[in-house]
């Protein structure tokens, strides 16, 4: 089995474009009729649904940003009656206001099919035992891969994340062949197997699908070695559906975008201008046939490159590179990519509110990496030792996520400089003279 839906995944470009055009025309009419936000934006720009004849007219439509999602929380962008929805998923919510995405049954099916395509591209068939160790719940990781695994007909182990002892026990006892989780958790499982004296060739796994957080090629090599598997990347975001918006095939050279459902564009993040294929810029997605929460031209803030180069796997869907950063916030500190999202993840896990500021500077040719974190009454210990202990524990947790050691400074509540209500996340004192990193 090479493809989950061969006809679709291998169709010629002209056919992809034809399908995209038909779906886009329908989708624009749907959102214009049902979502006030789109109607107002389009009216402002003087664009009517009748002006959209096909995929080439996509650039006439307005962009949508994460702020728009927050402003329209919870029902503002819902394009079908609430009673037609069967599910919500939600993002981790970094500024207090979460983003909630809605799904009809059709939308869930579409999403799960995308995940099934990813599983097949990673070598899975209905004979496989698929261990899903992403978190379940509001987070899309667990439900997405779980659904994909069902669609494909794998025996699905809905492990969710954590409890590594049990993960390893089920993996060994039930013969899990495909592991789905975050790359950092995959690496951790690898270490735990080693600690238990289980050699890479002695676990039943053959492949893994790892996403939801940035990871490097070095990390891939490490995970492949530690688990004795091939490690595949998967990309997605809750706003667009979840994991499976794009996925890697056996080539491991970029992720195929499920173009029958999602149109990708690359734009200049400063001007909004659409850039030609092969340019590095901000990734923008349009949902072609989702019903409940169909975002048009949603700015992901991920920086990457798109390619239509022919892939030896036979899929004709265009490929995107792994996100090389965020249009607003990736940092390279001591040679390591650091994403504020990783820092947020650690803070939430350690019981802190994600109110922080990263300060990077350079002293004696070495990067100095400080993170200020706002404390609250609950964690305020009355002694210096108590506060220092907290700072050290948080630094250790950061080190294990980021790979480099920041200095943590707890600061007073609400003391971090805010701009228009949002905390200023990054102060990079090294960059005052150089251009932004992604421009080259």
């Amino acid at each position, binding site marked *: 089995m090479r493809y989950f839906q061969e006809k679709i995944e291998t169709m010629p470009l002209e056919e992809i474009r034809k399908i995209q055009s038909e779906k886009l025309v329908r989708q624009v009419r749907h959102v214009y009729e049902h979502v006030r936000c789109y109607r107002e934006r389009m009216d402002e720009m003087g664009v009517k649904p009748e002006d959209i004849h096909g995929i080439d007219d996509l650039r006439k439509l307005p962009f949508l940003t994460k702020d728009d999602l927050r402003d329209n929380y919870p029902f503002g962008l819902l394009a079908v009656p609430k009673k037609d929805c069967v599910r919500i998923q939600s993002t981790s919510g970094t500024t207090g206001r979460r983003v909630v995405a809605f799904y009809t049954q059709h939308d869930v099916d579409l999403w799960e099919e995308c995940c099934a395509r990813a599983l097949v591209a990673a070598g899975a068939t209905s004979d496989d035992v698929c261990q899903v160790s992403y978190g379940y719940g509001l987070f899309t990781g667990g439900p997405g891969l779980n659904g994909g695994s069902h669609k494909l007909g794998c025996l699905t182990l809905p492990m969710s994340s954590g409890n590594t002892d049990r993960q390893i026990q089920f993996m060994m006892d039930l013969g899990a062949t495909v592991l789905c989780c975050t790359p950092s958790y995959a690496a951790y499982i690898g270490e735990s197997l080693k600690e238990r004296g289980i050699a890479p060739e002695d676990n039943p796994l053959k492949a893994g699908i790892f996403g939801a957080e940035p990871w490097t090629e070095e990390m891939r090599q490490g995970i492949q070695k530690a688990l004795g598997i091939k490690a595949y990347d998967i990309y997605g975001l809750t706003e667009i559906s979840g994991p499976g918006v794009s996925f890697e095939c056996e080539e491991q050279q970029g992720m195929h975008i499920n173009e029958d459902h999602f149109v990708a564009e690359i734009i200049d993040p400063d001007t909004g201008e659409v850039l030609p294929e092969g340019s590095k810029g901000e990734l923008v997605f349009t949902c072609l046939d989702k019903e409940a929460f169909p975002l048009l031209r949603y700015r992901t803030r991920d920086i990457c490159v798109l390619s239509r180069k022919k892939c030896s796997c036979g899929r004709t869907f265009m490929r995107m590179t792994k996100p090389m950063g965020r249009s607003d916030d990736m940092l390279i500190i001591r040679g390591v990519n650091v994403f504020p999202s990783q820092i947020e993840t650690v803070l939430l896990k350690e019981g802190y509110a994600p109110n922080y500021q990263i300060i990077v500077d350079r002293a004696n040719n070495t990067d100095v990496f400080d993170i200020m974190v706002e404390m609250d*009454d609950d964690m305020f210990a*009355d*002694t210096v030792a108590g*506060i220092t202990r907290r700072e050290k524990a948080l630094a250790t947790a950061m080190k294990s996520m980021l790979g480099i050691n920041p200095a943590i*400074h707890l600061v*007073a*509540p609400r003391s971090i400089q805010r701009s228009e209500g949002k905390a200023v996340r990054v102060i990079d004192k090294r960059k005052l003279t150089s251009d932004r990193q992604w421009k080259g």
Partner: protein
Amino acid sequence: MALKQLSVFVDNTSGALADITSILAQAEVNLRALSIADTEHFGILRMIVSDNDLATSVLKEHNYAVKETQVVGVKIGDAPGRLAAVLTVLKDAGINLEYLYAFCARTERHAYMVIRVADNEKAEKVLTEAGFHMITDSDVLKL
């Protein structure tokens, strides 16, 4: 029995203390005693004030992290060797000090020590047995 102290987390920035004391002044909270623990990045301001609830609520309104802590208040004579006598009692009982500070009353010829230890009750017990007078929140109001 014990004395209640307010601790406030203070960023190590200029004017931080002026801001806090101004807030308390505006609320007409009187300070009886205070001490500051300082590090390179932050400080902890510890205070005995005339109205803990009022002070806590106005400071929280201004987004400060505030914590009420039980401490031991001991009245000692204003004479050489009196503090040493208190600390010897604690030492002999094996009680470790976390911090302490002192204040004087306007009229009396006495000093007052504010002491933070892990076990307040035990400290109060051994000090009382050794003949020292503990002070409480209501005593502070009368000073």
